[in-house]
């Protein structure tokens, strides 16, 4: 099991704070209030004043969604190769190493087994702070294994997306992870095992256009950016300004693409209730 997980969430947040040098107060972009940093940490990165959702890292999500001390991480040793020998301003391996140092993860996805309200579940989480949560071979493999474990253990699969899309540096191999993960979902559906897709900020590109929007239910976080193409690309293509709130969770709810928008602190209860309604 990975070393990073033995660190508590509080220490990780504390380390992040130190390195960022932000001090112990934070000014909320949602309400402009200056609020104690520890209040955000205690509230799983949701503003206690206005409810603005900031990105929560994997340990926080595990603590929030799973029963205490039930999480067992899997596949933490998978790490990427450099199949294309990709170099832009830096070689790809240099980017990966930097991201590993910065995040404490081997790649942009954390997965494992645990319990949610005493029910066995398989959980997979994107780590956005690792190269924008981009999906390459490692992420695709971990997602597929998570789904396959759900199939083997007859356990509902929860995938929490927070990703800019496919990882360019692994080229078409990244693209193929979309087909690989969705094909695995097909088996899960055949076996009548639920797949719950949680859409956190942001869920775009190849992650949106594969498994993320085809959950048995799609549950979005308030304000999360969810869409296929980037707003800038769309504006350049259609040469018009996009409407207010475009590609936000509320926009997707309006257009019938998500089942519900659920505040983070209610997420576990919401999912627990659904699973109970389906399975008990």
């Amino acid at each position, binding site marked *: 099991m990975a070393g990073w997980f033995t660190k508590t969430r509080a220490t990780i947040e504390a380390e992040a704070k130190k390195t960022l040098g932000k001090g112990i107060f934070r000014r909320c972009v949602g309400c402009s209030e200056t609020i104690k940093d520890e209040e955000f940490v205690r509230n799983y990165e949701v503003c206690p004043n206005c409810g603005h959702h900031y990105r929560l890292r994997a340990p926080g999500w595990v603590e929030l969604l799973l029963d205490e001390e039930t999480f067992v991480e899997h*596949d933490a*040793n*998978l*790490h*990427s*190769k450099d*199949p*294309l020998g990709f*170099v*832009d*301003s830096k070689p790809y391996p240099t980017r990966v190493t930097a991201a590993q140092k910065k995040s404490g993860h*081997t790649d942009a996805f954390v997965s494992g087994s645990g319990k949610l309200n005493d029910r066995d579940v398989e959980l997979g989480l994107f780590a956005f702070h690792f190269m924008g949560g981009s999906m390459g*071979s*490692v992420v695709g*493999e971990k997602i597929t294994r998570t789904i396959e474990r759900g199939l083997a253990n007859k356990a509902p699969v929860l995938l929490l997306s927070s990703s800019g899309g*496919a990882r*360019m540096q*692994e*080229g*078409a*191999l*990244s*693209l*193929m*992870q*979309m*087909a*690989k993960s*969705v*094909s*695995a*979902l*097909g*088996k899960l*559906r055949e076996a009548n095992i639920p797949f719950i897709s949680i859409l956190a900020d942001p869920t775009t*590109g*190849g992650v*949106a*256009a*594969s*498994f*993320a*929007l*085809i959950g048995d239910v799609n549950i979005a976080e308030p304000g999360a950016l*969810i*869409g*296929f*193409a980037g707003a800038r*690309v*769309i504006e350049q*293509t*259609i040469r*018009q300004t*996009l*409407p207010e709130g*475009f*590609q936000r969770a509320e926009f997707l709810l309006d*257009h*019938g*693409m998500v089942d519900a928008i659920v505040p983070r602190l209610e997420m576990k209860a919401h999912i627990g209730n659904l699973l109970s309604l389906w399975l008990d």
Partner: protein
Amino acid sequence: MAYLDFEKPLVELERRIADLKAASDGLDGLDTQIAELEARAQTVQRNICDQLSIWQKVQLSRHPDRPYFLDYVEHCFTDFTELHGDRLYSDDSAIIAGFARFNGRPVAIIGHQKGRSTKEKVHRNFGMAHPEGYRKACRIMELASRFGRPVLTFIDTPGAYPGLGAEERGQSEAIGHALYVMSQLKVPVIATVIGEGGSGGALALGVANRVLMLQYSTYSVITPEGCASILWRDGAHAPDAAEQLKLLAPNASKLGIVEEIVEEPVGGAHRDVPNMAQRLTVALEAQLKDLDGLSAEELIEDRYAKFRKIGAYNG
């Protein structure tokens, strides 16, 4: 005939050949001269092809005269019956779908369609589908699955359309759902990248038992232009991005993504469309034959196994 920059050495030769042919009209003596020039054109053509850069090959995949899906429909199939609409919103002209006979055998055929003239380009939306296109494709593929007809798809798109309506109507869901539907088809599925295989919009027709690429086609996670504008912060670096993305057919083959590369006529598919269509017909026939006899379950499992093993990682 349109000529790309690197094809320019052919312009003068081919003009002279055409002139001589027009002038010869029944007269003797010019035939040997024409044959000589044609042989020289072939050599020039071969030399051009031998020295193509990666970026020039990308340009060939997008050549204005490159055969599109409908050209293959004309040359490789009979009795084509197009089926329109997704039953939900509209008919997307960027994807054409229907049933036809392939060497006498009924099959479903589905492909991205680019336009040749300006008007047709707009009508086909440059081969960039909306959600309706993928939903229509799913509808036809599911029909084929029910009636036991193999599905042949033809990929040629810069990508799914990035637009307001596309987002409103669920471009992401439409592509994701298409991947799912294809993974579950109970019939043989063969996909061929005939030009540009651009990101999710291409893959949405690509979850097949066998994936073929024409020699000068591309298959990529993002267009070189898109990649350059993100990683180089300048779209003009597209040729650099193209080199890094390893998007050509031999690369895809090495990565385990395609099963077969179909060689193109000298100079590229556009130089001899009937010949290209013939080569593709032979390849498709062989691949179909290879999948014959597999049960529905075996076909689904074969498709799963194909994609399951794709990826490069340690541990």
